[in-house]
């Protein structure tokens, strides 16, 4: 199901500024892997011009509204309204026609069965972690550490809990869960567990901190990055990040859309990932 026209099944505000959109998508359940994303065409006109990238939150089936017809296959995105495109998306309704390119990119590697899995989400960065959790709970203990600026930034937690994931929340203003940064919670958790793997998605400064903590504990880490994207398929080279071993003389750029958005932390050159390398307006905490 690469590029297809389809319709919206539902589009609702789930917390102030955060929306959930369910899109009809035949074949999505089999095709989408945890950590993959889609490119959403906001309008069939040329405003805004480029498609917008969004992580795939989950896939599934819902009963058809017509008796006797088979269930309708869907995929869901969760998005935060930050600019023109996402504002226009929030005006769309059930039944509206949309066009998406999906699934794109490389997702998470599920890691070693049996080992404890720690998922770290910052704000809207939680999105790609849900399908991953669905997969991981089958054979591992899974914890979610979720951080946000205020309680409004903490979304979809109950859905993780329903999967059997143990969840911890922290907010910077203390309005929900522990007061402080999610990375402090991670630090404490890693002091307690001996053998874990970490999967993280959120703003760049958070990912950097997660990387530092995981390296210190010798724990494997995979991160899902954001970057400005035009094509989403590896053709424009607009979305690159600096890879490990990058230097001015011997530059190594990795394509976030094609070689990512999920990278093993050792693939990246953390010392040289500028804040602008992974553009993170959408998930700013």
């Amino acid at each position, binding site marked *: 199901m*690469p*590029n297809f026209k389809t319709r919206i099944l539902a589009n609702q505000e789930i917390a102030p500024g955060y929306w959930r959109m369910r899109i009809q998508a035949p074949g999505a359940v089999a095709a989408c892997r945890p950590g993959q994303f889609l490119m959403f*065409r906001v309008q069939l006109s*040329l*405003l*805004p*011009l*480029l*498609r917008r990238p969004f992580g795939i939150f989950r896939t599934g089936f819902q009963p058809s509204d017509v008796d006797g017809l088979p269930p309708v296959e869907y995929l869901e995105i969760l998005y935060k309204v930050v600019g023109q495109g996402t504002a226009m998306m929030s005006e769309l309704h059930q039944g509206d026609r949309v*066009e998406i*390119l999906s699934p794109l990119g490389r997702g998470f590697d599920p890691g070693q069965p049996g080992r404890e899995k720690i998922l770290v989400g910052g704000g809207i960065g939680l999105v790609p972690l849900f399908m991953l959790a669905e997969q991981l709970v089958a054979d591992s203990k899974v914890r979610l550490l979720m951080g946000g600026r205020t309680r409004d930034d903490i979304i979809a937690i109950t859905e993780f809990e329903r999967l059997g994931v143990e969840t911890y929340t922290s907010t910077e203003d203390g309005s929900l869960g522990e007061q402080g940064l999610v990375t402090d919670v991670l630090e404490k958790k890693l002091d307690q567990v001996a053998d874990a793997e970490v999967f993280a998605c959120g703003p760049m400064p958070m990912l950097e901190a997660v990387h530092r903590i995981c390296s210190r504990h010798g724990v494997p880490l995979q991160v899902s990055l954001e*970057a*400005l*994207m*035009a*094509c*989403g*398929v*590896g*053709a*424009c*080279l*607009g979305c*690159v*990040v600096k890879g490990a071993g990058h230097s001015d003389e011997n*530059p190594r*750029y990795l394509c976030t859309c*094609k070689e990512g958005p999920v990278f093993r932390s050792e693939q990246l050159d953390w010392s040289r990932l*500028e804040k*602008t*390398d992974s*553009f993170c307006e959408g998930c700013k905490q």
Partner: protein
Amino acid sequence: MKVSLAVEVAGIQMKNPVMPASGTFGYGEEYAPYIDLNNLGAIVTKGLSLRPKAGNPTPRITETVSGMLNAIGLQNVGVDAFIEHKMPFLRELNTPVIANFFGNTLDEYGEVARRLDAIPELAGVELNISCPNVKQGGIVFGTDPKAAFDAVNVVRKNLRKPLIVKLTPNVTDITEIARAAEDAGADALSCINTITGMAIDVRTRRPKIANRTGGLSGPAIRPVAVRMVHQVVQAVKIPVIGVGGISTAEDALEFLIAGASAVQVGTANFVDPDAMQKVIDGLERFCLEEGIGDIRTLIGSLEGQ
């Protein structure tokens, strides 16, 4: 009625006049899952250089009104890796392949041309003398008639294949450069490359792309491109390929009527990977509706001159 969309540019036979613009279609394989590459008039690759090129720091792109700015900086695998890793895929296609390339020095232009000339399955080459993003190379060749002549001339001496020269719009008079390229032995011209632009983040007060300036492309530049194609067609005898802001068949028709023999679709591929197929289908439909049996009769059919 049967409509013929076939055109010939610089001796390259194409089943229709629609091809991707260099740098917006990777090396072809990136879009293979989305569009039947064999339906295209030709395929134009990402610009190649003698050695692999890293490109510019990020952020490299930003969206603007009906357009985008990019300063990719011509990141590419280099001509040898192209031959080894990209040609095997391309040579299986039933569509002419045109390699876009550039150099930093006249010697490099000549050397890349020589290596590309040795690839039998390449239908032709497109010489980029117009990239606005590379500090040393490109821009000086594309903006000065004498330098443009020299660059095209050195390539011509090293190349038997059809030679298309791609012009930059970032000049006072594009027809001077067009004539210089023709005089130096170009078989065709493509115009235009991107228009230098700038966008500023008003909160951080920094340029939105790391290179400060970038190349503007997309629907926003179409009227400029149509004007320049029209001017260049009047100034030279060789065929002209129209590029700049094409996303529909109607856009492509504007260029053909202005005198372009074929067209390239760039930024629109990002917006809709099916854009070129829609342009091809739309051209056929237009010809049927208008009772036009051969699309070539439209080329340069502008009225009221």
